[in-house]
């Protein structure tokens, strides 16, 4: 019997059936559910690592030991893991090794839409691309076979649409292959120059063998229908092309895109009148195909930017514009994601926003990235995971070096607990060691929140739910060299002490750290504990000044008949930030106090 699975669930299932024994990941949309699901299987070791580099290295160590292993990450996570990824390509595998990358054409939840197929040619490793959940499962199993047979890393490339679409899947049995012996072999495993020089030609020879394999494997397949149009496509583009063209075109579906099946492509090109290459983002296949002297239509017709859709293909291939609209003139309200009701970040941002004109806010990746939006506007720069602390230092040093008449904004770095563990610690070491007078705020909501609540080294719980020892953020901060008098820990629900801490941070002339500590309001235990805690507006006292509304809390709503604010009791958790900003004492706490 078939069941519906997302691509991510099917990748986890495929790894399980392939006999994977060790896996590590760092959460990141759209990849997170791979590890969330894999960690539920019995007889596997599954973990959340502090970052993708660590995750990849754990998987590599397990592969060297001779078992099947994988690491999973979002596309930009592979940038973090790029160092071991590039070098380990020279080692080969031993037990099968798969690195899963979930790319994001369309950027639903990411800062760029880099195409990680390019990493496969860069590192000289195999790249596989499934187009639905069944293929996620089947290709994952095949990936481990390839990794072991050709002694190579396999990059398993997904895109959001495959990760998050549910399609029917036929499950199979789990078969754990015998562990491969680990034999000490420094020429293969110790990559010093003398060994690397010998390994590189081995990898090049390996790629030639893999190209032959690519020409014969079922992962790449030709479907001949009407030969007037030939379409070379990959991943979700294959599904869209089939949807639009059906049997009015022939298809070469690429499931193994590195190395490409050159002979298969050349034969297919000869057998069709017009050749299209349909791939989201980069002209990865098109550039190679054209370099072989084959004429094809690709990025001159289909965009590089954004996600494809069936209607886009219909328009480009058949010249059919999407059907007419209903001509409705109303427009929907802007509904950006917001900090939730009771979010501990709200109190901090409310106070921080007051320094908007005097400070530079260097942000990071997490729910608190939303702090750039009104009403707070207290994030001025966001680059990548862990960048906040180091970029704030660069900003400060430039402040010091710039000409005297220039406005000097005090740099604040804002980083969440999980991101701090991910790659903020080295930035903090640099801050203290080089004595850069900036203020780092660690927003500790004790969970990796944005991706849907994964545990991290600060939570004291492992990926499989076992209890472990928490890593203390304040001890880490002190160990990095911050003076005890320059460290303040506050509860961001308490606006008074938060305000005081920010003032100290603003005035500090030495490296300064503020930890705002309060658990994410959406955590189940927090929701249960605060279920009956609410704030309530007294309509008699409410002057409709909207000071509370300017905290951006979605629980605060306006009664348009009375022109008074009221509080949605479903959302409110009694955090009392609105109560503290109300100048008329019109808001009171109700329910149980703890």
């Amino acid at each position, binding site marked *: 019997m*078939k*069941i*519906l699975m997302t691509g991510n669930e099917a990748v986890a299932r495929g790894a399980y059936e392939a006999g994977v024994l060790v896996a590590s990941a760092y959460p990141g*949309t*759209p990849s997170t*559910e791979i590890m969330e699901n894999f960690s539920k299987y019995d007889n596997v070791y599954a973990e959340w690592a502090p970052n993708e580099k660590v995750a990849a290295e754990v998987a590599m160590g397990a592969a060297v030991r001779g078992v099947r292993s994988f690491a999973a990450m979002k596309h930009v996570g592979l940038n973090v893991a790029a160092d071991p990824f590039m070098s380990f390509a020279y080692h080969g595998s031993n037990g099968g090794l798969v690195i899963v990358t979930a790319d994001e054409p369309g950027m*639903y*939840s990411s800062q760029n839409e880099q195409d990680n197929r390019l990493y496969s040619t860069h590192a000289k490793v195999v790249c596989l691309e499934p187009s*639905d959940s069944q293929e996620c499962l089947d290709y994952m199993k095949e990936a481990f076979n390839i990794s072991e047979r050709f002694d190579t890393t396999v990059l398993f490339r997904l895109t*959001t*649409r495959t990760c*998050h*679409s*549910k*399609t*029917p899947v036929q499950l199979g049995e789990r078969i754990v292959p015998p562990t491969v012996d680990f034999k000490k072999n420094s020429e293969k495993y110790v990559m010093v120059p003398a060994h690397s020089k010998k390994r590189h030609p081995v990898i090049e020879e390996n790629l030639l063998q893999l190209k032959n394999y690519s020409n014969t494997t079922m992962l790449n397949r030709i479907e001949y229908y009407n030969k007037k149009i030939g379409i070379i496509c990959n991943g979700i583009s294959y*599904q*869209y092309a*089939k*949807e639009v063209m059906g049997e009015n075109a022939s298809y070469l579906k690429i499931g193994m895109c590195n190395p490409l099946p050159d002979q298969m492509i050349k034969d297919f090109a000869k057998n069709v009148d017009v050749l299209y290459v349909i791939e989201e983002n980069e002209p990865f296949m098109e550039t190679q195909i054209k370099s072989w002297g084959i004429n094809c239509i690709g990025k001159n017709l289909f965009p590089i930017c954004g996600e494809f*859709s*069936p*209607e886009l293909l*219909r328009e480009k291939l058949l010249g059919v514009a*999407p*059907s*007419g*609209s*209903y*001509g*409705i*003139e*109303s*427009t*929907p*309200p*802007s*509904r*950006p*994601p*917001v*900090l*939730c009701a009771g979010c501990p970040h709200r109190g901090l941002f409310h106070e921080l926003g007051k320094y908007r004109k005097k400070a530079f806010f260097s942000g990071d990746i997490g*729910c608190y990235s*939303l702090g750039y939006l*009104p*009403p707070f506007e207290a994030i001025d720069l966001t680059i990548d995971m862990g960048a906040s602390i180091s970029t704030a230092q660069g900003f400060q040093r430039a402040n010091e070096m710039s000409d005297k008449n220039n406005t000097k904004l005090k740099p604040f770095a804002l980083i969440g607990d999980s991101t701090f563990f991910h790659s903020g610690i080295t930035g903090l070491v640099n801050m203290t060691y080089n004595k850069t007078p900036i203020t780092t705020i660690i927003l500790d909501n004790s969970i990796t929140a*944005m991706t*849907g609540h994964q545990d991290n080294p600060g939570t004291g719980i492992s990926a499989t739910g076992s209890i472990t020892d928490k890593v203390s953020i304040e001890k880490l901060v002190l160990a990095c060299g911050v003076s005890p008098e320059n460290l303040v820990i506050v509860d961001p629900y308490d606006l008074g002490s938060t305000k005081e801490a920010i003032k100290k941070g603003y005035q500090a002339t030495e490296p300064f750290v503020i930890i705002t500590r309060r658990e994410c309001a*959406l955590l189940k235990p927090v929701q249960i504990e605060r279920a009956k805690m609410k704030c309530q507006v007294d309509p008699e006292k409410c002057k409709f000044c*909207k000071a509370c*509304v*300017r905290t*951006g*809390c*979605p629980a*605060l*709503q*306006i009664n348009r008949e009375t022109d008074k604010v009221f509080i949605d009791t*479903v959302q409110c958790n009694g955090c009392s930030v609105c109560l503290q900003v109300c100048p008329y004492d019109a808001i009171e706490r109700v329910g149980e106090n703890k």
Partner: protein
Amino acid sequence: MKFSKNILLAGVGGQGTILTSKIISNGFLNAGYDVKMAEIHGMAQRGGSVTTQIRVGESIHSPVIEKGTADIVVSFEKSEALRWVDYLKKDGILIINDYSIEPFTVSLGISSYPFDVVEEYKDKIKNTYVFNAFEEAEKLGNPKVMNIVLLGAIVKCLSLEDIDWKKMIAESVPEKHLNLNLKALETGYKSSVG
């Protein structure tokens, strides 16, 4: 003509669109159809717009619906259909939950809410059905089963009575909430919609 349907649900994070879509998709799969369902996770829990799309038929390729081809668009929040109404085919059915969630952008005055939108839907789309599933759910004792009330309305509008929805719901909700959810299904099915 062979059975095929394109169903699009639009709402706001936390309204239960994804759970509803899972129940619908499993219902179709259980009845022996090919089915694909597209959803986008990520920031959905943070009060942003959410959409899920379900395609069912003999053989489905794309998990996403093309503009102008949805048999039904269900708006869990009354203004959210505005983002997706052009996906509705000619003579398609539009179900509007007459319930609004004003985003903070409206409270802050940086965006406006189309309070008269229901009239415009009715004016321009022939098969528009409006009812307040939130109120119906509240009457049953828990506003959270609003999504299952809407499921009942979908079942009625698309004549999907042959599928064992009670079993599908039983597989998707905790046992202690099952009766409430079954009542919600019935309430939606018996509503004025369709």
